[in-house]
C-alpha cells in the first residue's frame, strides 16, 4: 500500500507560476540566455540520401567576414562513443540520410554563419537510396523488441482460426502518415566550452539524460558537463533524448573555446533532424459473435526505422489490453530505410495503434448493428487480457457512459448520412483512449529549510510549457504541510539533483513522489518543525505493487464533425474527452493538457502529413505552409472533463499522469464521426478534402 499524501494545495486551479514571465517575454528560452561573447552556428546539410562525401571545399565560406571556423568530418574533434549512431556527428564521410549534418559554420552573426554555410561546396559519391515505405517489401523484419521493452509479437489462443470462423468479421487496413512533433520552440543548444567545463543551454525534456549522453559521446566525465533548461517551448517527445544538434553545438564549442556558440534549428531543419513519428500500415482484423462479443483480434503493424539506428514504435501494444477476446495476435514489422531516425512523438505506439483499433471497433459496431459505446462495454476485460494481472484502476466503461450522457449520445441515429445543415453533413463518433501509468526510477529531490518557514525544493525536472513549475510546487506544499507560497522550486539544471525525463506522462508522478519522499525524510530527520538550514534528500521509491497490477489510464472521446458535401472540407464542431487519470493535481493545467492532446489528435485526423519524396529522400512539405497543423479556427467547441478519482495504487498524490492520453483515440473519434456524417470510411490519415471528393 502507498502511504498517501494529505492534500490541500493539490487539486487547486492555480495559475502558472511562470505565466507572467512568459507573457512578458522574460522567461529565458535556450537561445535567449544573456551570455557574453556569443557566436552563431549554421549547419551544412547533405543533399543526397545515401553515399559518401568525396570532398568539401570550405575556402569560400572561410573568407566570409565574421566567420570564425568551419568544421567538417575532417576537422571536427573526435568523439569517444559511437554507441548512438544518430550522435556520430562529423566523424566520417558517410551519409545516411538527406539533411544529415556534413559541416557547420561558426560566425560572429547568424547572418554571416548562414551565408557562409551556403558557400560550403560538398562533392558526393552518391549511392542508391531507398525510402519507399510499403507493406509488400520483401525485407521487412521483426525487431528483437519494440520500444519500452515490449515484445514484438504476442499470440494468445488461435487468432487466425477464430477469425475465419467468426460470425461477424472486420478486415481493414489503416494507414497513418509520417508526422513531425513541431514544437513552437525549435531545437536549440547553446554550447560554451571553458575547459574543462562544457555548459549547454538547451531545450530539452531531460537535462540529466542530455548530460549523460553528451558526456559519454564526447568522452567527458559527467561532472564536466552542465545542462541548463529552465523553460521549454514544447517538445511532444522530440526533445526527449538528445539529437545530433546537441553534439554539433558541442563540437563547435570545442573548436571555439570561450565562445557561447548558439544553434537553433530552422523549421525546415527540424523536418530531418529532430525526430518524427513513423508512418504505419496496420491491418486490423476483428472477429465477433453476432451480438458483438469479440472472438479474435489480429493486429499486424508495418512501420519504419532508419537503417543506421533502430527505432521500433510499440504500435500494437494497446491492442493487447483494450478488449477481452479469447484469441489475439499482434505483430510489429519494420522497414529499414535511408531516412532520419524516427523518435518519440506524443503517446508513441498508442496514438497510431489506437487510431486503427478504434476505427476497427466502429466498423465492427456497424457490422453488428450495435451502438459503438455498447460494443465497447460488452468487451470490457475483467483483468489485463495478456498478463492476467489485476487492473490497478480501469474505468473505461465509466468514461464511455459519462461521455455518452454529456454528449447526448442516446439521441444519435446510428445510420450514417442522416443529418445535414445546408450542404454540411453532420455526424458523431466515439473512440476509447488509453495510456500506461509510468513511474520512472532515478529521480531525486532535495529540500532545504530556509527562513520563516520557507523551503527550497531542488530537482532537475523539466517544464515543457505544461505546468511543472506550478504542479510540483503544489505537491511540495502538501508534502511539507506549508502554503504554496512558502515553496521555492528550482528545476531544469543538472546542478540540481537527478531527474528522469518528462516523457511517458511520467514526470509529475516520478518527480512528485521524490519530493514527497524527501519531505518525509526531512521530517524523519528533523521532526515536524525542521530548523533553518536543515536538509534532506530522497529518491523516487520503487512502487511495491507494480509487478502485480496492470496500471493504465483510460478515456473516451466523442466528436461531432461537419463535412461539406460539395468540397469535402471537414470541420470539427464539437468534441468532448472524458478521462480517468487518477487525481488531478491542478485542474487548470490538466484541462490545458487534455485539450492540447485532443487538439493534436484533431490535427492528426485532419491535417498532419509529412510527405517523403522517394527520388530525393526528404520531406517535401518541410515548413508550416506545407505541413499543416490545426490552427485556432479549426478548434471549435472542445472540452475535457475527468472522473473524480484518487488512485491509491499509483502514487502518494493519487495521480497517474496526463500528458499523453488526450491525443490517444482522438483521431479515431473524428474519423468515425466523418463516417457517420458521410457514409464514407476513410482509413488513411489525414482526412483531407481530396479523400472525400467524388
Amino acid at each position, binding site marked *: 500500500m502507498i502511504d498517501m499524501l494529505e492534500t490541500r494545495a493539490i487539486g487547486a486551479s492555480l495559475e502558472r507560476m511562470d505565466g507572467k514571465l512568459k507573457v512578458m517575454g522574460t522567461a529565458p528560452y535556450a537561445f535567449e540566455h544573456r551570455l557574453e561573447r556569443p557566436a552563431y552556428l549554421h549547419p551544412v546539410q547533405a543533399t543526397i540520401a545515401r553515399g559518401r562525401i568525396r570532398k568539401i571545399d570550405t575556402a569560400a565560406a572561410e573568407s566570409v567576414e565574421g566567420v570564425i571556423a568551419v568544421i567538417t568530418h575532417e576537422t571536427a574533434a573526435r568523439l569517444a562513443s559511437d554507441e548512438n549512431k544518430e550522435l556520430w556527428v562529423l566523424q566520417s564521410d558517410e551519409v545516411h540520410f538527406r539533411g544529415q549534418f556534413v559541416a557547420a559554420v561558426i560566425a560572429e552573426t547568424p*547572418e554571416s554563419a548562414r*551565408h557562409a554555410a551556403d558557400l560550403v561546396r560538398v562533392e558526393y559519391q552518391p549511392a542508391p537510396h531507398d525510402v519507399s515505405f510499403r507493406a509488400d517489401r520483401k525485407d521487412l523484419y521483426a525487431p528483437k523488441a519494440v520500444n519500452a521493452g515490449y515484445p514484438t509479437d504476442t499470440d494468445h489462443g488461435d487468432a487466425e482460426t477464430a477469425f475465419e470462423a467468426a460470425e461477424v468479421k472486420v478486415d481493414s487496413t489503416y494507414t497513418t502518415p509520417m508526422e513531425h512533433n513541431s514544437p513552437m520552440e525549435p531545437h536549440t543548444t547553446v554550447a560554451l566550452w571553458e575547459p574543462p567545463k562544457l555548459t549547454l543551454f538547451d531545450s530539452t525534456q531531460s537535462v540529466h539524460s542530455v548530460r549523460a549522453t553528451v558526456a559519454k559521446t564526447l568522452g567527458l566525465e559527467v561532472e564536466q558537463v552542465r545542462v541548463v533548461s529552465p523553460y521549454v517551448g514544447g517538445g511532444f517527445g522530440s526533445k526527449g533524448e538528445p539529437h545530433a544538434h546537441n553534439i554539433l553545438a558541442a563540437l563547435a564549442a570545442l573548436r571555439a573555446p570561450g565562445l557561447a556558440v548558439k544553434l537553433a534549428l530552422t523549421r*525546415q531543419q527540424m523536418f530531418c533532424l529532430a525526430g518524427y513519428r513513423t508512418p504505419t500500415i496496420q491491418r486490423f482484423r476483428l472477429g465477433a459473435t453476432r451480438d458483438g462479443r469479440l472472438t479474435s483480434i489480429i493486429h499486424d503493424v508495418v512501420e519504419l526505422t532508419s537503417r543506421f539506428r533502430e527505432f521500433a514504435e510499440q504500435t500494437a501494444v494497446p491492442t493487447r489490453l483494450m478488449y477481452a477476446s479469447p484469441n489475439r495476435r499482434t505483430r510489429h514489422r519494420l522497414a529499414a530505410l535511408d531516412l532520419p531516425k524516427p523518435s518519440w512523438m506524443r503517446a508513441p505506439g498508442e496514438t497510431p495503434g489506437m487510431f486503427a483499433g478504434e476505427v476497427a471497433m466502429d466498423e465492427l459496431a456497424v457490422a453488428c448493428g450495435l451502438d459503438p459505446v455498447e460494443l465497447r462495454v460488452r468487451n470490457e476485460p475483467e483483468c489485463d487480457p495478456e498478463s492476467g494481472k489485476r487492473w490497478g484502476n480501469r474505468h473505461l466503461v465509466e468514461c464511455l457512459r459519462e461521455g455518452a450522457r454529456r454528449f447526448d449520445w442516446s439521441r444519435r441515429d446510428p445510420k450514417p448520412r442522416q443529418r445535414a445543415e445546408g450542404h454540411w453533413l453532420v455526424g458523431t463518433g466515439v473512440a476509447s483512449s488509453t495510456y500506461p501509468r509510468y513511474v520512472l526510477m532515478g529521480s531525486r529531490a532535495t529540500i532545504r529549510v530556509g527562513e520563516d518557514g520557507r523551503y527550497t525544493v531542488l530537482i532537475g525536472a523539466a517544464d515543457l510549457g505544461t505546468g511543472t513549475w506550478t504542479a510540483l510546487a503544489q505537491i511540495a506544499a502538501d508534502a511539507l504541510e506549508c502554503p504554496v507560497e512558502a515553496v521555492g522550486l528550482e528545476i531544469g539544471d543538472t546542478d540540481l539533483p537527478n531527474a528522469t525525463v518528462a516523457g511517458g506522462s511520467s514526470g509529475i508522478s516520478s518527480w512528485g513522489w521524490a519530493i514527497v519522499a524527501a519531505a518525509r525524510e526531512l521530517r524523519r530527520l528533523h521532526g515536524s518543525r525542521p530548523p533553518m538550514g536543515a536538509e534532506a534528500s530522497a529518491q523516487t521509491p520503487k512502487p511495491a505493487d507494480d509487478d502485480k497490477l496492470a496500471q493504465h489510464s483510460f478515456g473516451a472521446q466523442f466528436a461531432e464533425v461537419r463535412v461539406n458535401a460539395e*468540397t469535402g472540407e471537414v470541420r470539427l464542431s464539437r468534441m468532448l474527452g472524458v478521462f480517468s487519470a487518477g487525481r488531478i493535481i491542478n485542474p487548470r493545467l490538466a484541462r490545458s493538457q487534455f485539450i492540447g492532446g485532443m487538439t493534436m489528435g484533431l490535427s492528426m485526423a485532419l491535417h498532419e502529413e509529412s510527405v517523403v519524396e522517394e527520388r530525393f529522400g526528404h520531406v517535401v*512539405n518541410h515548413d508550416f505552409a506545407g505541413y499543416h497543423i490545426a490552427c485556432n*479556427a*479549426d478548434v471549435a467547441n472542445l472540452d475535457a472533463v475527468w472522473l473524480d478519482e484518487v488512485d491509491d495504487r499509483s502514487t502518494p498524490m493519487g495521480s497517474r499522469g496526463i500528458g499523453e492520453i488526450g491525443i490517444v483515440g482522438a483521431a479515431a473519434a473524428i474519423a468515425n464521426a466523418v463516417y457517420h456524417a458521410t457514409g464514407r470510411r476513410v482509413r488513411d490519415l489525414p482526412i*483531407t*478534402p481530396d479523400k472525400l*471528393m467524388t
Partner: protein
Amino acid sequence: MTPFSYERASDAGSAVARVTANPRAAFLGGGTNLVDHMRLGVAHPELLVDVTRLPFSRIESLSDGRIRIGAGVRNSDLAADRIIRGRYRVLSQALLAGASGQLRNLATTGGNLLQRTRCAYFQDVTTPCNKRNPGSGCSAVEGHNRDHAILGASEHCVAVHPSDMAVALAALDATVVVLGPQGERRIPVVDFHRLPEDAPERDTVLEHGELIVAVELPALPVAAHSVYYKVRDRASYAFALVSVAAALEVSNGRVRDVRIAFGGIAHKPWRALRAEASLRGAPATEESYGRAAEAELADAKPLKHNGFKIPLARNTLRMVLRHLTPGAQR
C-alpha cells in the same frame, strides 16, 4: 542569405531608376515573401529599394466611379475599407481568406500580386526547379504535385499562383498601373500574370525595374453581389486547393451578368471566360451552373496527385453560384 544593401526610395521615379540600373536590385514592399526567399537562398538581390514610404497608400474613389488602390495599401486596410466591403465584397473576402492577420498587416497590394509560387520544390534550393533555376528541370511534374495546376501548365512548370486577392481582382476586371523607365503603362490583371510555357521563371509581364503603383477597379455593379470561397486543408492559414471568386446578377430567372475566376488551379488567377460565356443569358439553374463548370474545366489535365481538383473546382463553382442566386438557401 547573401549580403545586400538597402535603400529607402524617396520618390517613385528614382526608385524605378535605381532598380532599372542594377539587374540584381529588387523593390521591397511588405517583404513577407521576398525576405523568406532571401533566407532560403531562392532570391539573391544585392540591392533592396524599399518602396513602402512612397505615397501609394491611399484608396481613392475616382470621378468616373472607378476605385484606385495605391500599391502600398496593406492587405488588412484594403480588406477593411468600407467601399471595398460594400461594392467589391469578393475582394474583401479574398483578402481575409489569405495568410494570417500578422501577414496581412504587412503585405501590400502590389506585393500580393507579385507573390511567387509556394511550390515546395521552388522553395527548396536543393531540388531542381525551372522557375528558380531555368533549365534544371521541374521536380513537381513527376513528384509530389497535389497542390499543382490542372489548367494552363506546361512540361516546364506545373506551379500555381498562391494569391487570393489576385483571383478576386481577375474576376473584377481590375487594371494594374505600372511605372517604368519610359513612364506609366496599364495592364489588365488577367494579362498581368503569365502561363509558364517555356519560361516559367517569368511570373508576370513586368520588365525589370517596373514598379506597380496602383490597382484600379472599374465601377462594376455586379461586384456588389459577389463572393469568394476558398477550399483549403484547414479552416484558416492555408493556401487554396481551389478557390472561386464570383459575381452574379440574375434577372427574371436568367443570368444577366457574371464574373468568375478560379484560384489554386493554374499558374495565374484563372479567369473563367468560357464559364461566363456559357452562363450569360442562360437560366440561373443548377444545370446551367454545372454546364458552365464543365465548359471551363474541359481542358483540365490532372497530374498524379491533383485529379481531385477537377471535381472540386466544379463543385465549388456550382456551390458559389447557387449561393449567389436570388432566393437560394444560404
